[in-house]
């Protein structure tokens, strides 16, 4: 007999209670793990989409709407801005990089984004197959788009007008798929990327059809239709994603833009902070409720295990009468308590990750949040340590109490 074999006997003898304690432990751990994983990843996904974009310039309107539409691709744009103005701003000395974004069409609900190659490199996109777009009407697909639609290289796809699925198809101007990106975990995965010129091209054609005999301006367009490189005064994009060349830019550039042009500038970090302050109360309440449940689970684990260990005080008193040292009693209670704690924590880790993975499968269908249960965060070590600490605490207190109790009163009863 030793501490381990004795502990196993005890646990097996009260199998139902032991399993209940393990289950409580597992439920508590799983809850914390799930909360950690989702919180960290949702936060990470948000900041990943924001990374390196210091300022967004677009048409005047709600700054938040502009950020949501052009950075997160969640809302409709505030309108368009003139290409000439955008290009002038791009050449500003305080601007390190300016990436154009032209929205307007979608492919089966996935947004078609007119941009340049910098957009892809900015989000760390790498080609899984094919190549990057070279000229108008070529597209590169985000990993989710390619996977969900099962599209191969060389296939033609047809965009539809608007930002959500519609029947207004641009069948006359199909795109050719030239590349597919690897998953990035950013907004890139859900986009169809094409040169800005494609968006103009598709819409000139559409406009031409709609207003064939009414608009002189568009006939003027037609003359230049095959020469997109030539300067067009009325060509437009939706927004410009700007990174600053110097921190000083933050102080002057947004004001300069808003004052001297028909465009507005907004800081994504600021707008997201504002957004979360709107929803703050709700999110805070939810996460506080989560931690409250976790604390409750921890407490019930402690109470349950503590009581189980405390019920053994007669036996521990007897062991003491038979000559066991405090160290021996502590080792015995510790072994038993840790067997429960360790298996509970291990099971909880497994459940927590599996739970998040299930949640992730469900969320990936809504297409807005990409998380996974298959990563391990460093904070999880803290959860493991915390769980095992509860186990240690539950063992130490009864073992210590056993050395303070009155053996006579306990055993002679």
């Amino acid at each position, binding site marked *: 007999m030793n501490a381990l074999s004795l502990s196993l006997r005890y646990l097996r003898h009260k199998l139902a209670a032991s399993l209940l304690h393990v289950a409580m432990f597992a439920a508590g751990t799983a809850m914390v793990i799930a909360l950690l994983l989702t919180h960290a990843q949702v936060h990470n996904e948000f900041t990943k989409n924001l990374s390196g974009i210091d300022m967004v310039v677009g048409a005047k309107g709600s700054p938040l709407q502009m950020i949501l539409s052009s950075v997160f691709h969640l809302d409709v744009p505030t309108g368009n801005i003139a290409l000439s103005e955008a290009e002038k701003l791009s050449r500003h000395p305080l601007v390190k990089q300016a990436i154009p974004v032209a929205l307007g069409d979608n492919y089966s609900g996935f947004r078609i984004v007119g941009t340049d190659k910098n957009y892809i490199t900015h989000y760390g996109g790498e080609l899984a197959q094919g190549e990057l777009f070279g000229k108008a009407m070529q597209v590169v697909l985000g990993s989710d788009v390619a996977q969900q639609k099962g599209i191969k290289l060389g296939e033609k796809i047809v965009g539809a007008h608007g930002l959500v699925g519609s029947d207004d198809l641009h069948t006359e101007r199909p795109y050719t798929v030239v590349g597919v990106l690897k998953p990035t975990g950013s907004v890139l995965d859900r986009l169809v990327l094409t040169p800005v010129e494609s968006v103009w091209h598709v819409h000139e054609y559409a406009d031409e059809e709609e207003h064939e005999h009414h608009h002189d301006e568009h006939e003027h367009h037609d003359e230049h239709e095959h020469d997109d490189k030539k300067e067009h005064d009325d060509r437009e994009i939706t927004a410009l994603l700007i990174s600053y060349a110097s921190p000083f830019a933050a102080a002057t550039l947004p004001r300069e833009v808003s004052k001297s042009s028909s465009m507005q500038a907004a800081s994504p970090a600021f707008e997201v902070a504002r957004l979360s302050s709107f929803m703050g109360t709700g999110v805070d309440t939810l996460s506080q409720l989560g931690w409250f449940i976790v604390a409750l689970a921890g407490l019930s684990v402690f109470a349950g295990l503590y009581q189980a260990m405390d019920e053994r005080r007669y036996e521990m008193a007897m062991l003491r009468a*038979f*000559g066991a040292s405090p160290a021996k009693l502590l080792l015995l209670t510790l072994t038993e308590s840790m067997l429960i704690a360790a298996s509970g924590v291990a099971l909880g880790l497994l459940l927590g990750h599996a739970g998040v993975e299930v949640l992730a499968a469900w969320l990936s269908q809504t297409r807005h949040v990409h998380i996974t249960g298959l990563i391990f965060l460093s904070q999880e070590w803290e959860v493991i340590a915390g769980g095992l600490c509860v186990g240690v605490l539950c063992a130490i207190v009864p073992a210590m109490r056993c050395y303070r109790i009155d053996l006579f009163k306990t055993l002679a009863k």
Partner: protein
Amino acid sequence: MIQLSQLKAGYDGHAIVDISNFTLPAGEHCLLLGKSGSGKTTLLYAMAGLLTPLSGHVQIGAVDITAMPAQKRDAWRGRQMGIIFQTLHMVSALSVLENVLLPAYASGMKQDAAYAMELLFQLGLEEYAHRKPAALSQGQQQRVAIARAAICRPSIILADEPTSALDDEACESVMQLLLDLAARSGASLVVATHDARIKAHFHHSLSLGASQ
């Protein structure tokens, strides 16, 4: 040898037992007699070092156990004494054999399973060795408790009412077993009881509660 001097024992500061002087020579047996509530159990626990006396001394051999720190006293008791509690305190999670071996585990002495089986055989319990105590009758459990008290080959066996729950026949056989075991290891047997049936087996006795 057990020597009690100026011993006052009790609890909550209230002395129940007051013995000015008593000596039991080594290897001899003694009966602690008295009605219930007279302090038999109190004295037995004081002799075992499970209850710290209010004053006075308990000397066993050359050792004054009242002067020992609790932890050292526990270790000493584990090696020198076998105890049969009135409430048997069998560990229900363990088999009969493991229950017998428990004091050896607790005191860190050799867990001699062969000796435990021999004891169980002697007590007529060998076929129950791998059963749980709950499957045994009260009399059988009493005998397991005797084997458990003897496993570490103690020099003193202390028993609290070991026969009071048994019928005449069982009482006689339990007494015989206790005396045999004590004789084998040359141990002193100290029995606290109000059971008049076993008086005949003892030369020494200490009557309690007469003065109160």
